[in-house]
Structures are given as structure tokens and as C-alpha cells.
């Protein structure tokens, strides 16, 4: 019993040590830099314009284009990095802007409808 108890005690100690390591392992990330906060942004398509027509955000943020116009539109990056395809009236499309830097975009149907996104 004692021997068995000793084994049991040793096992508890080893288990306890494991918990310490586990706690330490869990605690370490808490001291690491916080994960960036991701924001969701909204751009309204109305009057054959993007509103706002320029938007500054953090790389990794999401953007949703909402079409409140009478006609279909697209949100198409000038460098081809992203393209919504057709967004019918009363519909929306979202993407994550991953790449930092300024990005010009336009409606693929209406060349006078242009916008800018600047990702920090």
C-alpha cells in the first residue's frame, strides 16, 4: 500500500509538474504580442459611385461592398488582385484585403466609378 501509495504520490507529482508546464505553455502566449484586431468595413455603391471612395484600413481587415444602386456593379482591383464579379442590385460581396499598400479599384462595367483602398 505504502509502495503503491508512493507510486501514486510520484504519479501525482509528475502529473502536477506536467500541469505546471501546461500552465506555463498556456501562459506564454499571453505574454506574446496580441493578435491584430480585424475590422469589417462597408462601402456602399450608390449613384454610380463608391461611398466612401477611399478607405484606409489595416492589412487583414475585411471590406464588404453593398450595391444600393439600380444597376449591377463590380469591385475590381486594378492590379487583378481581387474581383467581385457581378454584384446585382440589393446584393453584397466581401473580401479580406491582405496585401499592404494602396490599391486602386473600379467598377468593371462603369469606368467612371473608381475607388481607392490603402492598407497599412
Amino acid at each position, binding site marked *: 500500500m505504502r509502495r503503491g501509495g508512493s507510486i501514486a504520490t510520484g504519479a501525482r507529482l509528475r502529473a502536477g509538474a506536467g500541469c505546471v508546464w501546461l500552465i506555463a505553455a498556456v501562459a506564454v502566449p499571453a505574454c506574446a504580442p496580441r493578435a491584430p484586431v480585424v475590422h469589417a468595413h462597408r462601402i456602399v455603391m450608390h449613384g454610380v459611385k463608391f461611398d466612401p471612395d477611399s478607405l484606409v484600413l489595416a492589412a487583414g481587415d475585411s471590406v464588404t461592398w453593398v450595391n444600393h*444602386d439600380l444597376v449591377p456593379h463590380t469591385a475590381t482591383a486594378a492590379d487583378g488582385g481581387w474581383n467581385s464579379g457581378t454584384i446585382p442590385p440589393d446584393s453584397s460581396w466581401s473580401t479580406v484585403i491582405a496585401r499592404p499598400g494602396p490599391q486602386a479599384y473600379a467598377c468593371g462595367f462603369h469606368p467612371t466609378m473608381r475607388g481607392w483602398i490603402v492598407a497599412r
Partner: protein
Amino acid sequence: MNARTRLIRLVAMSLLLLGAAVIGTSCSSKSTETASNTPPPESTATAAPALSDANIAAIVLAANDADIANGKQALGKSKDADVKSFAQLMVTDHAATNDKAKALATKLSLTPEDNETSNGIKAQQDSVRATLKDKTGADFNKAYVDNEVSYHETVLGAIDQALIPNAQNPELKQLLTDTRPVVAAHLDHAKQIQAKLSGTAAK
């Protein structure tokens, strides 16, 4: 066309517009960049001809139908990528606008009532397409785009001076207000292609 003939046609077109017999044809476009996105002044309401909401609904449908037909003709005849792209846009956008207008008319139990203006639009644009039917290549492209510029200029004028001021129902007035920037964007787009076809586009 010399300058005098062009002026006469412009004046005639303006009178037709004010008399609610819309749509000029081949008048060469003059740049009205600043006017495209400027809301109509409130004071024009008193000078506009009296049109009922049923008249206005018929004019909207006729104007959209005419440009859809123009666009379909261009899709069948032109091989120019810019012209075909624009023509497809006209078919898509004017069909979408017509869908909204028809849905609103149904909602309001408004039966479109043909009138001198709506009939004038149909007759005028039928005549333009008959003329364009015999043109090919660059001649067709130029004539089609020139007509699209003058047509959208005229429709924009009609929206500002006749349709919005006379619309009584707030939802119909809002539909016209929402349609205006679409027509203005089409006009700017048509002017860009017109400049490109004539070799005067900004490099």
C-alpha cells in the same frame, strides 16, 4: 454638318424637350462634363411641361426600351471591343432600370400612359436605328456612339427639366433621382469612347 445646322438642331432639340417631345438625333455633342453630376435646380419645376405620373412612367419605359434596342443593334453590328462593351452595358443597365420602373408601377397600380414624348422617343430612335442599319465598321461605330452621347444628353435634360419636376409620387420621383446618375455615367462613358474613336482621347 456645319455649325449653323448643328445649332438649329440643338435649338430644335431644346424646344422639343421643353414641349415634351423629346430626343434629338445627330447633333454633335458638346462637352457638358460639369453638368453631368449636378443636381437639377428646384426652380425649373415651374417651366416644365405638365406630365402625369402615368405619362412619366411611359416615358421612362420608352427611353429604356429604345436604348436597349440601340444596344442590341450595336452588339450585332460592331466588332469594336469598347463599343460592344458599352452596348452590352446599355442593354444590362436599361433593362435593370426598366425592371425597377415596372415593379414600381405595379406597386403603385400605375398604368403607363403613352404620350407625345414617349411616342416621340420611340419614333426618333427607330429612325436612328434604320439609318444605322446600312452603316458598317468605323462609320457604324461613330454613328452609334454619337447618337448615344446626344441621346443621353437629351434624356438627362428631360429627367432634370421635365420628369423629376413633374413627378407627383415620391417613390417615382426617387426612382428618377436614382436613375439620373446612371444616365450621367452612361453619358460620360459614351463621351470617353467618342473621344477614343475620334483619336482625341487623353493619353
